[in-house]
């Protein structure tokens, strides 16, 4: 019986002109988005690789100079994209891509790609993930809203029920029929995506297969949730018109209103410091000491440096730094670098906490919008989420302190107060290993995603339950 119903449903949909149009448009959009996503990923990948390679050469190829001056020239970290960015570009258009690692200064990753594009880019990018998250649910709604309600309007539901068809058979038949129609869009999308991954792109991690597999599962649950929801509403609604209005209203609410509203609410709840406030506080802390910290970092900067100076004077038993056999300027610079590293780690850590609490709060709204959990999961799995950006920031800060320490030590080891002039060349600069970004592992990416997995699973389960219950009490 289920098979017969499924076949009828499928045929009815496929023969409808509107269906043909929507499948054609969706496939066209999907193809376009995959093609441009692929092309963009590749061009960014090449730019980034060559920039980072060039940076290593530029660092080594510097003119001979004072090693501290070399640290001022510093290095640049350029943010690479994960392979799956061609599918979901996530936050990448709005996150900094270049980070200058230089002496004395702790910088942010700057230059968001969106800055150089026009205002139209704020409508959002047409990526495969956007199509699956936003457009596909609408197609599901348009295909499924009249499944029960339409038959009720035209009176055929009464006839079908009078034949003794079990309501649950009707549900599963309709589910299979509409599902088969939707798979005409979904299957090509999966095939294209898998083909690009398998044949065209070099993998950036061992876990690419599992990431792609998990993406598939997440989107499958999302699609099923919308399908059951549509069938359920269609069974409950008084007329097809009502079902359509309710479903489209929910879709617009979940896909357009909620992401923005959640973001604004999270900004109200957890306030982000501004650029000038951040540096004002960090610099004041650097000068006055980090309260509550252990050791000398908690002291005012001048006391901290003075203490080190006194220790050195005592150690070498001399009266002034001029008489020291070691290069005091180099030592004091290194003391300040280490001190500031601790302080900025604290400040950057606090900022990271702000960002992650905002994300957590936004994710919590996933209980009224299935888009939010699937969006977060998709970004995390594609390697284009906040975690990836923070990994980039942290690896760059760690590289920075090491590079500067190497250069300062070079200065300290080779100079004295009497003879402070020293230049180094390529062989010294080569002691600094090139900056390398290590993307988060799958388990790191999934760290903050437990809540989203639960929410998405709940959407799948509850919408299934809702559809089953709605059909049980089907009124003809």
């Amino acid at each position, binding site marked *: 019986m289920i098979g017969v119903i499924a076949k009828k449903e499928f045929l009815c949909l496929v023969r409808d002109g509107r269906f043909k149009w929507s499948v054609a448009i969706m496939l066209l*959009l999907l193809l*376009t988005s995959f093609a*441009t996503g692929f092309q963009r990923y590749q061009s960014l990948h090449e730019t980034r690789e060559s*920039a980072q390679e060039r*940076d290593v050469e530029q660092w080594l190829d*510097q*003119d*001979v*100079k*004072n090693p501290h*001056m070399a640290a001022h*020239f510093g290095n*640049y970290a*350029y943010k690479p994209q994960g392979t799956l960015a061609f599918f979901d570009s*996530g936050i990448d258009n*709005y996150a900094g891509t*270049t980070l200058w690692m230089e*002496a004395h200064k702790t910088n*942010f990753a*700057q*230059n*968001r*790609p*969106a*800055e*150089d*594009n*026009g*205002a*139209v*880019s*704020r*409508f*959002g990018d*047409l990526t495969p993930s956007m199509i699956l998250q*936003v457009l596909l649910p*609408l197609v599901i709604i*348009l295909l499924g809203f*009249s499944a029960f309600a339409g038959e009720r309007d035209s009176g055929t539901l009464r006839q079908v029920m009078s034949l003794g068809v079990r309501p649950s058979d009707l549900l599963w038949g309709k589910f299979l029929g509409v599902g088969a129609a939707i798979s005409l869009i979904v299957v090509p999308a999966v095939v294209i995506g898998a083909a690009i991954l398998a044949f065209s792109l070099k993998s950036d991690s061992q876990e690419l297969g599992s990431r792609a597999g998990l993406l598939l599962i997440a989107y499958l649950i999302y699609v099923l949730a919308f399908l059951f929801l549509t069938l359920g509403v269609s069974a409950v609604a008084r007329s097809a018109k009502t079902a*359509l*209005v309710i479903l489209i209203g929910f879709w*617009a609410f979940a896909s357009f*209103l909620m992401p*923005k*509203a959640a*973001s*604004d609410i999270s*900004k109200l709840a957890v306030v*982000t410091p*501004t*650029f*000038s*406030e951040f*540096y*004002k506080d960090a610099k004041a802390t650097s000068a006055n000491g980090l309260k509550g910290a252990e050791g000398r970092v908690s002291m005012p900067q001048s006391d901290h440096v003075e203490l080190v100076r006194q220790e050195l004077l005592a150690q070498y038993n001399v009266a002034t730094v001029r008489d020291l056999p070691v290069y005091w300027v180099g030592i004091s610079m290194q003391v300040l670098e280490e001190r500031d590293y601790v302080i900025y780690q604290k400040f950057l850590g606090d900022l990271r906490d702000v960002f992650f609490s905002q994300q957590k709060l*936004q994710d919590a709204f996933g209980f009224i919008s299935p888009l939010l959990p699937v969006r977060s999961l998709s970004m995390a799995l594609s390697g284009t989420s*906040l975690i990836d950006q923070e990994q980039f920031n942290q690896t760059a800060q760690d590289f920075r302190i090491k590079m500067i320490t190497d250069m300062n030590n070079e200065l300290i080891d080779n100079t004295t107060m009497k003879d402070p*002039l*020293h*230049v180094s060349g390529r062989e010294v600069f080569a002691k600094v290993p090139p900056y390398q970004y290590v993307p988060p592992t799958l388990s790191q990416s999934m760290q903050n995603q437990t809540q989203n997995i639960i929410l998405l699973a709940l959407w799948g389960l509850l919408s299934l339950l809702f559809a089953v219950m709605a059909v049980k009490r089907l009124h003809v």
Partner: protein
Amino acid sequence: MLKIIIQHEIRLLMRSSAALFMLALLTVAMMFGAWNGYRAVERKNTSVDVAVEVEGQIKQNVRDELIAYEKYTEERNLPRVFAPVSHTKPRVGQSPQGTNAGAVGGELLKEVAILPPTGLSAFAVGQSDLQRTYTYVDMKNKFNMSDNYEIENPLNLTAGTFDIAFVILFILPVFIIALTYDMLSNEKESGTLALAMTQPVSLRTFMAAKLLSRLMVLMVVILAMGLIALVFSAGKLGMLEQGSTWMRFSLWVAIVFLYSLFWFALGVLVNALNKDSETNATVLAGSWLVFVVILPALINLAATTFHPAPSRMDLKVAIREATSAAEKTADETTKAYFTDHVEMLPDKDSITYLEVFLARQIALEKAVEPVFADFRFQQDKQESFVSWFQYLSPTVVMQLALNEISGVSTKRYNDYMDTVYEFHDVWRQYFTPKYLRQEILESSMYDDFPTYTYPKENLTTVLERVVPSVIGLLLIVVGVTAYAFSRLRRFSVREGS
């Protein structure tokens, strides 16, 4: 007759709980949007205020040290010298130090060049959340200044702000669709249309009345909410008395009215096709999707594919390339001195250092300018591409116009940056000769340091940029309305015919 039907329709609307619910939702959304927009402006102002305060404090400190030095030399009858400036305060027992124009204008002080908000800033966040609305100007190269990074969670930037512009662009059309999709079809389905047509009224008058009544109710709500938002936000920013604020608001009202008209006209057109309410709703929802979501995304895709922005990574690589090239021309002996810490060097060497530093900045700018100019060039190309294709989607037209009217457009920002680059030259022209001539800075000169003021905005520039959009939108609206009403001629009132 028209008046009677309008009165009747408004009465019906006011009794319909669905319509009232939607109007209430619209009110709430507008309020939430106004609040978020205001918060965004307030945040930017905080960032500016703190920056000004911090830089002002630095200036004060540097000046105080100079005053101490002047007092010190006067008391002891010593000659004042042209000297490097210490980055730290003199230690206990150390005498106050002199100063020089190169270090003061090149390393210690920065002018905060501010792009002020407009009276309507709270109505749209636009592109203004991507970069700071102030620039630190010093004697370093100009590319430094173009990185006006402001801290913001990239997740929030990706989602965009729920501001008034969002309510107008995305939500308002949904409500208009809900108010119009069954204007005629419902009357026909319930059989009242034929009845109404027995009265001495033409179908087109009947439709016009239905249209006008809904338009009037909606515009009253939008206008009221807009006024409240304006009084609230511009009032708090202290810009309510300015004529330009009201000029911008009038433009806003005009363009919102036009945009609403477009969606109403589309509603009439779909009703004129004589399909059932369900089909009307589907077609209108589909149009919403196409105009508000798909076409803007496609236009963006095409603009960024045909005229891709260059990569900032390439710019950084070019800057470093030029830095290294300039370095290699310096002679061996000075290299050893380049520790970037002028206070460590004997006077003679510190002077060499700063001279070389300044010369290097200029050489760097010359070498990198072509790479840098390419960003603006590609952005202009994208914009001219979009300015042609925007008419495919009234929502894109509207977005660009709203950004322009609120003063958060890329064009306004670029114009501002151009004035900052000009000021950068003024700043350099002030300090460099004084430095090279080894003039001794006096504390009294600190009041004469160049200051940046944003040039008074000419509203005709805004008008020039908005007028093509307004005319384009107007033509679209007139076209759709005329076609819709001509279709009504062929509308059959009775079922099944």
